[in-house]
């Protein structure tokens, strides 16, 4: 299954890994959220250039006993949720780094 979804971390977000979790804060409104272990791996892989399906296949399915189709659906839901809150930028095209500044 292909996703064709590209995503990158917003420039107005600060993030820090704390153990297996990552805590993320919006510098615009100070809202906070904590990403679990799997979400943290996806967050760290968000380079704007690698499509989500490739990230899920290489980062999640190789480490966790998950069904690939299910994992991709869950990952899509997660990145869309983070994008809706301004933490990520989504595109159906690769996102050059200069577009994130």
């Amino acid at each position: 299954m292909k996703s064709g979804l590209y995503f990158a971390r917003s420039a107005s977000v600060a993030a820090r890994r704390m153990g297996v979790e990552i805590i993320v804060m919006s510098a615009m409104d100070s809202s906070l959220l904590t990403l679990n272990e799997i979400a943290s791996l996806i967050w760290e892989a968000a380079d704007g250039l690698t499509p989500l399906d490739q990230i899920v296949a290489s980062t999640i399915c190789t480490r966790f006993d998950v069904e690939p189709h299910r994992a991709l659906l869950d990952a899509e839901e997660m990145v869309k949720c983070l994008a809706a809150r301004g933490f990520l930028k989504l595109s159906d095209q690769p996102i050059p780094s200069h577009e994130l500044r």
Partner: protein
Amino acid sequence: MTQTVTARMRRVVIEIDNLPIRFWCDSSDFIRLIEERYSGFLSSSNNPISEFEIELTTEDRLGAGSEEVVVNREGEQWLIQRTDFRAQWDFATGQGRVRQVASIYPLDSVLRVLLTLILARKDGFLLHASSVIQNGNAFVFAGKSGAGKTTIVKHAPPDAFLLTDDVSCLIRRRGAFEAVGTPFYCGRGRSGENREAPINTIYLLAHGSENKIEPVQGATAVHGLLENVLFFSRDPELTKLVFETACEFVNHVPVRRLTFVPGASIWDLIR
């Protein structure tokens, strides 16, 4: 600043955490009020990091039209305002001006905001927390209004020094975090002592039916800390700095949840 300060003006320097801030005002009465309110934190420093001219007025709608403090930034210029004051401050030069009613509360708010902005760039922050020094170590008790900040330090052992019963100043120095006394209090509280000490533990306060202490780690600890950080600005640059400092803090200082029943016995658990 020097162009507007006149010969009639009197001055006073308030120094918190080695950050002297000089205030000028042409009202001797108001300068006296400042000296009384911040008596433990007055300084003779001739090298202030910031300088403010205070203009007193009887106007009652001075800034923002809001009961909450509103802080805005344009470049290095900051505008800090509430219904009872309007302050402008230039971060680059340290020069500022505040127009306010003749009450200590507007000035106290300006001072708090100013410190949050200055501390953000110095690996520090203000926290809704009481704190004391005992045996050379600082113990910090964080929580919003009603959490028990004042109550817990009221029951502290007699050899403990009060740093604050309302707003703690926490700053990283030489790789370690220290708590610094502040003159900030609310209601019938009292000013802290002008001292500092390395932080032993920070406790996130919770009321309960029994006394207990539990460790809080990782992201939960960062959440618990940031919920209590005083930060008035929505400036992305400074917000990121405060976030980074809070994460560093959690990596260096033990964070615990302290559930307690008001009373002196809680201090048997605090070490």
